[in-house]
């Protein structure tokens, strides 16, 4: 959107960073249009809080407040609305952040597909914490906090269009504690992202392009639940491109990689954390996968959206 162009928006990262009276604030917003509204493991309410908290967390920010806006279709069942709001309240409490302000609008039947939720978040970035693609160097390691693809596949199967049954649950969760544990490593932490729409592959492709490096993933180290792998196989989907809503991917210096892994595994949400790859100098701008059989392939940027309305 060129008309809105300005230096704060330019980096196009998950959160904007604002300098205010000597402090750095992170500011972010997201709209949630997930279908169905309720799915195994959570609801639009959970996503709306966790998604925004996570965008702040991976910017290195301590979340301090959220706003929540609702566009509700006339006739939407009040009990469903109560459930969604309850989920939001519970997620906000778990993340230790209040919903400080909000708004509700009702539109005519047929004009909003149930309910849409928009949340914005404000956080404070501690002095001295510098994160960004420009900090990433060849030799750095790539860490993942847990299993890939749980959310996207859970939502896809919950739609009921495919005759597949499973016990997959969304991984929606706030990763602020995981991010905080990594931030404590100091300058060894280079960059973080929550791999939502487009999955890990998209987040790392953006990093490779913005940092001018190569990211090489080791296929054998990628944590994927067997049920997710099975569902992906049947549907011809690659777990690398499937949305995650309770995970973070981080790049750390080689000498802090083991400490970073221990820090993630020390948290319940990071039990399946793994070192999944490394950064190299070239070919710049690409993500490669070293296959379990000893070959390699490119993990390209996704063309189009294979799984719409996942979040």
């Amino acid at each position, binding site marked *: 959107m060129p008309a809105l162009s300005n230096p704060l928006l330019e980096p196009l990262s998950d959160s904007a960073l604002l300098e205010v009276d000597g402090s750095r604030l992170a500011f972010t917003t997201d709209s949630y249009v997930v279908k169905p509204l309720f799915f195994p493991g959570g609801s639009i309410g959970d996503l709306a809080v966790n998604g925004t908290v996570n965008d702040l967390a991976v910017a290195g920010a301590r979340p301090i407040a959220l706003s929540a806006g609702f566009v509700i279709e006339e006739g939407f069942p009040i009990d469903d609305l109560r459930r969604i709001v309850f989920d939001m309240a519970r997620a906000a409490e778990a993340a230790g952040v209040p919903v400080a302000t909000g708004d509700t609008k009702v539109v005519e039947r047929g004009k909003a597909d149930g309910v849409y939720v928009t949340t914005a978040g404000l956080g404070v970035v501690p002095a001295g914490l510098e994160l960004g693609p420009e900090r990433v160097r060849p030799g750095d390691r790539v860490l993942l906090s847990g299993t890939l693809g749980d959310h996207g596949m859970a939502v896809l199967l919950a739609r009921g269009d*495919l005759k597949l049954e499973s016990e997959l649950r969304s991984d929606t969760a706030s990763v602020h504690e995981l991010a905080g544990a990594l931030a404590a490593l100091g300058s060894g932490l280079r960059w973080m992202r929550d791999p939502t729409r487009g999955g890990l592959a998209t987040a790392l492709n953006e990093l490779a392009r913005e940092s001018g490096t190569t990211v090489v993933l080791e296929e*054998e180290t990628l944590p994927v639940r067997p049920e997710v792998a099975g569902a992906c196989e049947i549907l011809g989907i690659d777990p690398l491109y499937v949305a995650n809503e309770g995970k973070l991917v981080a790049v750390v210096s080689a000498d802090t990689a083991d400490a970073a892994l221990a820090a993630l595994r020390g948290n319940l949400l990071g039990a399946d954390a793994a070192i999944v790859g490394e950064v190299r100098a*070239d*070919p710049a701008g690409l993500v490669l996968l070293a296959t379990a059989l*000893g*070959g*390699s*392939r490119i993990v390209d940027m996704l063309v189009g959206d294979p799984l719409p309305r996942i979040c």
Partner: protein
Amino acid sequence: MRFVSEYRRPDLARNVLREIEALVEPGCPVRIMEVCGGHTHTIYRHGLQQVVPPQVEFLHGPGCPVCVIPMGRVDDAIWLAEQPDVVLTTFGDMLRVPGKRGSLLEAKARGADVRMVYSPLDALELARREPDRTVVFFAIGFETTAPATAVTLLHARDEGIENLCVFCNHVTIGPPLRAILDTPGTLVEAFVAPGHVSTVIGTRPFDFIARRYGTPVVVTAFEPVDILHATAMILRQLRDGRCEVENQYTRVVRRDGNLRALDALAETMELRETFEWRGLGWIGESALRIRPELAAWDAEARFDLPARHEDDFKACRCGEVLVGAIKPVDCKVFGTACTPERPLGACMVSSEGACAAAYQYARPVSLTTA
């Protein structure tokens, strides 16, 4: 057994690779063609070309039924989608394939009712649920998917469901293989034959390749260890001077195929005299149409389709890529004017095409060279 992970085990792969290494001879290249998009993908996804000895070269043939649909037929599908009260149902792969008038996805964005289904039985269910609409199923694929279409037609006939019809673009695997072998200068020395088409047709239809063309054939499953195993089987045939059709996919494929599926096909479809294949031109008896008795469920009988022939773009060298005469990187427009986002030819239009797979997974980069 999980049927996936066992056939991806690195230790099993290493065993087979050792056998392959013992079977190749220095200075003797062996060019093996696979013709199924699924095989192309497995080779690229697991980087198999890099782990086999340099003498073994995988060529990628015309086994992508999406790629070979001519642009004029895609335009016909778009025309159908734009007819009043029509719901056009299609497999996901066809949504982005461009005809001269754009793609089905673009038609959908303009307001046509185009819906993705995973099976023609989904289209039948839709017809039951929406009796006021005419549901058209865009049927594509080799003999692999044709039986599902056949069964759907039989159900529709037996239940008297009149608001369903099929736009039949099923093709058969034998004729393009013959066309490749008849092409002067063809480099193919052996075939890794498609596994899933064989679950329907069996392995007999490939006998002519061994008998008349002296080319070994191994019907192969789709995991990386399977393809390496098939490679070893081919090398053993060549070393022994044998020329046979062997079945590597014994866990699913039988010599005679699936008789019930073949019966359903015979009851509902017949061979067209000729059919146009994008990139390969007109090939005789290479495609199926719905039998006249079932004309009520045949979109080509119910509608007056534009049925225009559209020429491929001039710079397109898909015909040569499809028979393995050149590699995707040898085509001047590969990756420049012709990309997956803006495909010019058959090999780039679907992710199963040789050029699309090469572009996605192996633009000239590999960890062994980086």
